């Protein structure tokens, strides 16, 4: 579904990502793990079109999407839940969700999707009229995910969903993600929390300093001595 | 893309440099002494908020020059034609200075006229004095302009304080004539050089005439709302309200007085905005019965006045105002001096101005006699009071005072209808 070929990207004069190639198949859940600053967010932002690549190609099915503006890419069903949640702080929960549904494609199904989101994340239904920034970190993360779901994603990209959350909440978030996968939505998850991410996905890539240093099945990666040492502290 | 934009900028810069240099070279070649042409310079505000005033001054000069040239130019100089170079001061003194420098040293003009604002006249006349080039000040009325001991400055306009003196005389004579005792006066003025100068003169002449100033209200020239000032006047309720305003605020004041039904014995304007042809357009019927002081009116009882104004109106579509008349008459005073001097030599021209005693021709529309005192100030600059009155259903400025120059058959409305209620 998503194929990236020999991609270089970065901002200004800096190249953060070098020669990245990866692919995500329909219905699959894939993790990209790596430390802070290894280029994970840059990668997602390049796919989403916020950054334009310096080299290489990005394909969604048979359409090339590098150099499309972000909203066109979202229209194709490639939706990102950005790092740090980035909800609209001065808008209510409901308004945040409806922004997610602002695409023509998603608007038609807004009602149905809203029901689904409220079903999946009942907390949001309770707090429909609360202003975004007054919510707790965990609620904000849920809202960010809910907002993305309103956009009818075919490929949902999550950037560090565990960031800044207590372990309990992290587990809750990953449970929600697992439920989303059941809906046949393809998921690409980018995480620092290697254990959690690889535990959920079947396949993963390791991003180190802008390169993909390893790839393989999640089990392989989890048992790799290098990974154990560098990321799991063992 | 980047490279291209860089090139465009560098091209642009090169073009600017080359053209600037070109201007320099062209200037040096262009200063030839063509006996058939007398080059003069005029500094006027041709952009910025005072641009309309600059425009009418330019039109009046153009009309006079066309007439003079068509009538054979300056005879004593072999029929030389007058050529006027207009320079834009933007109403800014520094630009005025820069333009005076340019006109004198670059355009090599024989004489400078202008320049509407006193603020620009003050420093730019200083430049002319330094180069010993005659500067014919037609409109600016700031007292000091001819009080600095300059030799090359001649002013056709009255001094500011003369206007305020005449207004005071008018009030006293009306009070007597109609037996309406006047005790108190309110002054409302825009807070620029002009307004502040007027206040100084009022503070001198009004108390001398036994009148008490009960309100002295400056307002910023670019006010968005003058209602507060009007409401204050309503509260203090002076017998007479006197104003110094540019056209926009004059109209704003007039309309707001009408809205809030402020009714003193008389409203008296001090030319400027009240004399502007667009004032009535803006203020509408609210301007009825307002007095204004002026040096010239379309209906004023003077030779040539009506005919010239008619020509102007046909040419440009609206009537002249006092400033236009001064600019126009000024050109004939200059022509007279040139004829007498027979040369553009600054000193000869200066001598000619000093000796000027013009008592005929189109300049009559402004003054029956044009003569300068030793400071270069026009002696006996004429002043009249007019009143906005409906004549046959149409609002007109009717000259009402002094009686000998008043419109034939006119009647003064005094006091302001409804005053004292």
């Amino acid at each position, binding site marked *: 579904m998503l194929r990236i070929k020999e991609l270089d990207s970065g901002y200004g004069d*800096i*190249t953060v990502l070098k020669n990245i190639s990866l692919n995500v198949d329909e219905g699959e859940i894939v993790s990209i793990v790596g*430390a802070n600053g290894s280029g994970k967010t840059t990668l997602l932002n390049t796919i989403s079109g916020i950054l334009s690549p310096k080299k290489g190609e990005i394909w969604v099915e048979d359409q090339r999407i590098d150099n499309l503006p972000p909203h066109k890419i979202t229209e194709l069903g490639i939706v990102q839940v950005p790092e740090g949640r980035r909800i609209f702080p001065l808008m209510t929960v409901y308004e945040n969700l409806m922004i997610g549904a602002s695409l023509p494609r998603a608007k038609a199904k807004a009602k149905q999707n809203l029901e689904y989101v409220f079903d999946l994340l009942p907390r949001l239904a309770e707090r429909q009229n609360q202003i975004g920034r007054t919510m707790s970190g965990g609620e904000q993360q849920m809202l960010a995910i809910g907002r993305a779901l309103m956009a009818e994603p075919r490929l949902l990209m999550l950037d560090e969903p565990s960031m800044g959350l207590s*372990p309990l909440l992290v587990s809750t978030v990953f449970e929600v993600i697992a439920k989303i996968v059941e809906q046949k939505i393809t998921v690409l998850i980018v995480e620092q929390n290697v254990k959690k991410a690889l535990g959920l996905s079947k396949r993963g890539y390791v991003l180190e*300093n802008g390169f993909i240093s390893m790839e393989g099945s999640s089990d392989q990666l989890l048992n790799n001595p290098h990974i154990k040492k560098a990321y799991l*502290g063992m | 893309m980047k490279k291209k934009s860089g090139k465009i900028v560098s091209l642009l810069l090169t073009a600017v440099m080359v053209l600037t240099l070109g201007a320099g070279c062209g200037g040096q070649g262009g200063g030839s002494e063509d006996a058939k042409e007398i080059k003069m310079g005029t500094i006027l505000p041709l952009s910025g908020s005072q641009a309309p005033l600059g425009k009418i001054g330019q039109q009046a000069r153009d009309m006079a020059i066309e007439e003079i040239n068509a009538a054979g130019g300056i005879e004593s100089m072999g029929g030389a034609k007058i050529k006027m170079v207009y320079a834009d001061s933007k109403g800014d003194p520094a630009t005025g200075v820069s333009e005076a420098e340019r006109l004198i040293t670059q355009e090599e003009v024989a004489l400078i006229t202008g320049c509407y604002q006193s603020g620009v006249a003050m420093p730019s006349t200083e430049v002319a004095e330094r180069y010993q080039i005659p500067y014919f000040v037609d409109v600016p009325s700031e007292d000091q302009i001819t009080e600095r001991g300059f030799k090359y400055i001649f002013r056709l306009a009255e001094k500011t304080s003369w206007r305020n003196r005449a207004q005071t005389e008018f009030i006293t004579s009306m009070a007597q004539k109609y037996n309406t005792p006047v005790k108190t006066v309110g002054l409302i003025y825009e807070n620029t050089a002009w307004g502040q100068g007027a206040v100084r003169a009022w503070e001198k002449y009004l108390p001398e005439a036994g009148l008490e100033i009960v309100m002295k209200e400056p307002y910023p020239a670019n006010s968005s709302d003058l209602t507060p000032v009007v409401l204050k006047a309503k509260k203090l309720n002076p017998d007479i309200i006197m104003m110094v305003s540019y056209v926009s605020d004059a109209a704003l004041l007039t309309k707001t007085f009408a809205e809030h039904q402020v009714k003193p014995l008389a409203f008296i304007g001090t030319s400027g905005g009240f004399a502007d042809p667009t004032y009535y357009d803006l203020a509408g019927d609210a301007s009825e019965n307002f007095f204004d002081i002026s040096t010239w009116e379309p209906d004023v009882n003077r030779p040539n006045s009506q005919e010239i104004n008619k020509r102007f109106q046909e040419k440009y579509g609206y009537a002249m105002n006092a400033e236009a008349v001064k600019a126009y008459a000024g050109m004939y005073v200059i022509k007279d001096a040139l004829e007498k001097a027979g040369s553009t030599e600054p000193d000869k021209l200066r001598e000619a101005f000093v000796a000027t005693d013009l008592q005929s021709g189109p300049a009559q529309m402004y003054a029956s006699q044009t003569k300068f005192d030793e400071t270069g100030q026009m002696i006996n600059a004429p002043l009249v009071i007019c009143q906005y009155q409906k004549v046959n259903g149409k609002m007109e400025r009717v000259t009402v005072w002094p009686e000998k120059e008043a419109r034939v058959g006119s009647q003064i409305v005094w006091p302001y209808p409804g005053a004292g209620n």
Partner: protein
Amino acid sequence: MQNTLLELQDLTVRFGGLCAVNKLNMKVNTGEAVGLIGPNGAGKTTAFNLVVGVYKPSEGKVIFDNEDITGLPPNEICKKGIGRTFQVVKPFGKMTVLQNIMAGAFVNTAKTQEARQIASEVMEKMGLQSKRDKLAASLTIPERKRLEMAKALATRPKLMLLDEVLAGLNPTEIQDAVLLIKSMIKDGVTILMIEHVLQATMAICERIVVLNYGQKLAEGTPEQVTGNEEVIKAYLGDDYA
């Protein structure tokens, strides 16, 4: 001679209703390297910001070098001898690497020449000579991290607060960085560091303090801390049990 260099007494700060740091007590001794760990959002960076004066504590005190520095502005605290790096690095983008470090060096001298001298030394130590005249904005992430440390080091601090300086580095680079930090310690700089890369933290620090929800959860040698059950539950996750 266990000289206390930095002491936090009941340090507390509240933002709105949220208690970001809650009655935190801890000590850092001269010459020591102490690690501050805890899950994201535990209040580590906030604690740093309280020490260096970015935030004013709602309650409690910060004692540095036997002096109460609570509530002093950041620049004063820097002059007292505390250097800090930012988690999200903040290079002066339109200055070169040398100029960035010089800006730090100027704390101790008003002479440009001297500042350049100090900066060159620091630059060499941090292995940034080759980037000397590059604009800071054009550096890669690891280079920026190093520049961040160099800038702080140039102020000649007694105590250095390092906020995740190893994050984003690959294992080789981490090794280099660990050596760098160790050499800083050898040069007499006391270190308090926030870090996620546990291996490296353990290699550097003699003592580790664990924060959770703004409170101190545990304190001790790396071994003690990693063995502490509460820590495992809160931070490392039950998977480590």
